[in-house]
């Protein structure tokens, strides 16, 4: 088990190296002048060809491929991702500043989806009947066919526009002032929902939550349908397995059969799917945050893309690749934790 995890962790940097290489190759499609845009904070510098050339030399932007890659890699290791004109600050700083907002959104989307999605899937598998089956199947396909940006606009239209229940952004102005500028308010985790509770500010907690609901639903509705369906079919499949009959033949009660014998086995494919789902969600962050003007990484990445801000978009892609590789590692490890056949290999 330990050696398995260690092996996986050792592969991780190799994959990441591959990702940087891939991104550098894409980056190389740009002219040195365009790549320079990543490193400067004022486009007017480009006016003067000499100062531009000096910067190109400084950042080794017109070097041949291998050495250019090495220099770029070195700057990445120093967390020097360049300058983000979109955020008007260094890319790394921009990332760190926006990461908590995105993480808060993603975690709040993942955890309920996983817990409730699996729970519902198990329930619907146990109370298996044809109407529910068809309903889930149809819902899943429709959910699958409904693009996030359309669903998000729908939510925006209904809950924000028509009903006026939910506000866009991340915090109301009054709450922002308290959270960011007031001395008494301490930021422990930078997750506003958690920090507000730690500070005993229920009003801020409620405000933050109201801002989160729309994005959470939008980010997770596909995953809900998907995970529920996968859990259900995996459960149904497992419940037909011989060992379930064995357990029943021992006089084990149905609850134990389902929640101990069946569920643990049924989770094995679900873990893989949940992993894929989380990865999909990372992509969905860009659209969701854009639709709801939620000030996280995705929103920033989308505006960077619109403004051809290469530095930001590449920093963002690298970060997400990193998150994805780490996510895959977690999935593989939890896979091993559940399945002794993998664990003891």
């Amino acid at each position: 088990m330990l050696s398995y995890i260690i092996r996986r962790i050792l592969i991780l940097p190799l994959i990441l190296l591959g990702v940087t290489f891939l991104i550098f190759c894409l980056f190389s499609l740009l002219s040195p002048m365009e790549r320079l845009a990543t490193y400067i904070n004022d486009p007017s510098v480009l006016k003067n060809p000499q100062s531009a050339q000096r910067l190109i030399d400084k950042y080794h932007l017109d070097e041949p491929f291998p050495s250019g890659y090495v220099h770029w890699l070195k700057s990445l290791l120093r967390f020097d991702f360049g300058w983000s004109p979109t955020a008007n600050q260094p890319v790394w700083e921009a990332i760190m500043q926006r990461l908590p907002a995105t993480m808060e959104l993603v975690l709040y989307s993942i955890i309920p989806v996983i817990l409730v999605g699996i729970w519902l899937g198990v329930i619907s598998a146990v109370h298996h009947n044809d109407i529910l089956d068809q309903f889930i199947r149809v819902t899943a396909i429709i959910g699958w066919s409904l693009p996030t940006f359309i669903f998000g606009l729908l939510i925006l239209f209904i809950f924000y526009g028509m009903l006026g229940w939910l506000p866009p952004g991340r915090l109301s102005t009054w709450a922002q002032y308290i959270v960011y500028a007031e001395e008494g308010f301490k930021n422990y985790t930078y997750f506003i929902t958690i920090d507000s509770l730690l500070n005993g500010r229920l009003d801020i907690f409620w405000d933050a939550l109201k801002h989160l609901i729309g994005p959470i639903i939008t980010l997770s509705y596909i995953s809900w349908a998907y995970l529920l369906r996968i859990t259900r079919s995996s459960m149904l499949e497992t419940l037909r397995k011989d060992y379930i009959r064995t357990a029943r033949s021992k006089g084990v009660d149905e609850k134990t059969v389902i929640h101990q014998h069946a569920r643990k086995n049924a989770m094995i494919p679900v873990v893989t799917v949940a992993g894929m789902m989380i990865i999909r969600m990372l992509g969905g962050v860009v659209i969701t945050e854009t639709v709801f003007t939620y000030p996280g990484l995705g929103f920033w990445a989308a505006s960077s893309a619109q403004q051809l801000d290469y530095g930001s978009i590449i920093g963002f892609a690298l970060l997400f690749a990193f998150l994805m590789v780490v996510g895959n590692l977690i999935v593989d490890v939890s896979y091993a934790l559940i399945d002794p056949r993998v664990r003891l290999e």
Partner: protein
Amino acid sequence: MLALQVPSDSNGLIKYGGLDYIFPIRYGVHFHNGDILTPEDIEYSFERGIIFDRAGGPCWMLLEPLLGVGTIEELAASVAGVENYADMFNEEDKLLPEYQEAMIRVYTDYVDRAVEVQGNNVVFHLAQPYAPFLNILAHAGSWSAIINKSWSIEQGAWDGEADTWWNYHDPTNENDPLYNVTNGTGPFMMTRWVPEETIMLERFDDYWRGPAKLKEVVFQYVNEWTTRKLMLQKGDADIVYVPVTNINEVKEMEGVEVIQDLPTLSNVVSSMPWTLNAEGNANLGSGKLDGEGIPPDFFSDIHVRKGFSYLFPYDIMIEKAQHGQAIRNPGPIPKGLLGYTDDPELFYEFDLDKAKEEFQQAWDGELWEKGCKFNIFYNEGNDVRKTACDMLSTYAKIVNPKFELTPVGVQWSSYLKQFLAEQLPIYTIGWMADYPDPHNWAPTYLGSNGTYSAYYGEAYLEWATENVDPLIEEAMKSTDPEERASIYKELTQLAHDQAVALYLYQPIDHHVQRDWVKGWYYNAMIPGMGDGADFYSLYKE
């Protein structure tokens, strides 16, 4: 207003025919950190601004009147006798020792002398009489903001010495110690700044005019109109920027006040460079007048320019794309400034027949016969400018089906890049006042050194040097408003006769706020005033 008196000829604080401006400094003004304002702080602030001179930044406005140059680099290079400022530095950006002395002289002989402390007065010595100088200083822009000298030095900014200044010239944001800290004398102090996201201000209780009524101010950058609208609707935002196209959506909103018809000091112009850079330029098609493209000097023919001037449906544009929230200008000078004229003779009107006549004469009839094909530009995402392009393209086709103008949207950065490279055949660009004086406009659009017109190509520069520049110079030096006005009118006449550009419109601004916001007033010269405010005067009910 940190001065006790505004200098003028009558109070004797402007001397030597407008070469010296003397400002007696107010006593007992506090900085946010508690320090008291001194004349030295003011001297330091301006001198630092001059040596700072960020490339593309606003400091030319100080350099031009005080030192008679556009950039400090220009001055340094001429003092040191080198062609380029960069030539004085080695690979690692270190000053080469042989130039050290010259660089010190730049400071001691020029910069230091331009702004001086005399007792409790600060004296500005101008390099030449410069009519708009007071307007420049009075503007709320960053170039005349006063900072605390000792505090700035503590933060790691320029230490005020002559032999170090070049290390503080044109820094990158990361290397600028004052990039993300503030310490001023204004009514509010900055408590939090997330670039492109939020600015939070808190009342400064020791403000010399007495504390402001608002305790705190939060600015938020929200690009999405829908979000801004919701914030306004819910009362989460007190003042929002509403695009002119969406103004109808807020007019009926409860508890929201819409103030319209605010004149702005800005205009939008489509330029037609007389000669273009043909090198590597795909925008010109074949690069010849053969129906498949245009020659680089296409627009140097006055009939072409006049043709396009008649082709544009100015009124439809204003009515539809601007919801009527704009007026027309005959030339570069916006309404509300000295020298503006609304002589109907000077306006081009949408007239396809006249356009046809002009085009038929252009290029000795060759253009009419063969047609043309080229790209016209707008910056991606700017729907109004795209509409303008589409209009030109459509109506050109009506006049002559052989005229094919393809609207192309490009990102702002590459738009600017191509504009600087003189590659754009027709492109639209706007200008907002830096200071309320026609001198901020005429040279920009017409002068051979103008921010825009300098890129109109060889042919234009030749014409402008001969016909425009002397007038601009004369207007700048004159202190007689009437005389100046007539010169600017003359310039407008020139712009019309030569059909230098399509003067599309001068936007009219509006202000949208919750009705509980009180104390708002309009001042066209405060940047972004339509959607912003002088927060000192504001209070909420």
